[in-house]
């Protein structure tokens, strides 16, 4: 797990776009509408099925992707229009998923990741999004810069 304050598109993206013969990649862009949350997690689940995951592993990844995409829609774009960039990659037994938005960003990533922290005032949000991503994946890294956006990179070993 790590914290960062650099949502600069260039480095991470270039690195991930270098074609590696052993690496298989899914890239998608979805509009930041809540209807698309289900589509996003199901697409990643179908993509990872080539790794012969267990039902539990699929559920774990679906839950984590759902949390990250929901964060992008609610917090990143504040319910307004925008694009969520999702990239999933399979390399050996490792699945990595990146969920990125070009929304408002997070000023204090460490604080945002504290269990039960929520900026929501209706009381309807549990504040457990990042805790869920940590619980269901092996590794999570959050890169964010106010005004530029947020990228969540999550990794999980499949078939241990």
């Amino acid at each position, binding site marked *: 797990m790590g914290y960062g304050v650099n949502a600069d598109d260039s480095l991470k993206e270039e690195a991930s776009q270098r074609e590696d013969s052993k690496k298989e990649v899914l890239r998608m862009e979805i509009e930041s509408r809540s*209807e698309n949350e*289900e589509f996003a997690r199901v697409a990643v689940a179908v993509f990872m099925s080539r790794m012969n995951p267990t039902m*539990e592993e699929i*559920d774990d990844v679906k*839950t984590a992707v*759902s*949390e990250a995409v929901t964060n992008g829609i609610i917090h990143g774009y504040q319910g307004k229009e925008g694009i969520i960039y999702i990239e999933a990659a399979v390399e050996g037994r490792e699945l990595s998923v990146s969920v990125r938005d070009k929304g408002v960003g997070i000023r204090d990533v460490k604080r945002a990741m504290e269990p039960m922290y929520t900026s929501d005032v209706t009381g309807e949000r549990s504040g457990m*999004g990042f805790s*869920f991503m940590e619980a269901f994946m092996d590794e999570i890294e959050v890169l964010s810069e106010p005004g530029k956006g947020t990228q969540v990179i999550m990794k999980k070993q499949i078939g241990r």
Partner: protein
Amino acid sequence: MVEPGFSYEARGQVLVIHLPKELDHHNCRSLRYETDLLLAENYVTKIVFDFSKTVFMDSSGIGVLLNRYKQMERSGGKVSLYGAGAQILRVLAIGGVGKLVPQYDSKEAAIADAL
């Protein structure tokens, strides 16, 4: 994906809430408003959540459950649930709801406990 979210069933003072297949942020949006209306207009002492059709839940579902739990706790009421499958049970446990809300196999058992 355009499936309507929730249906409600009144059993005396027990409100049974039948949850949708996918309990995520999208499908949770209408629940707060609808249950608040129902609770304001009816004397409800117990809420029973039906997970028997639900195959997916994320932390949005936890937010909804915790909020109803707090609401009922304030008025001296109870909350229980039934029909939760493997993914739901794991999410409930990690979300800390497992200990607060008793879980049952059938609707009758969940209602009986709530009484």
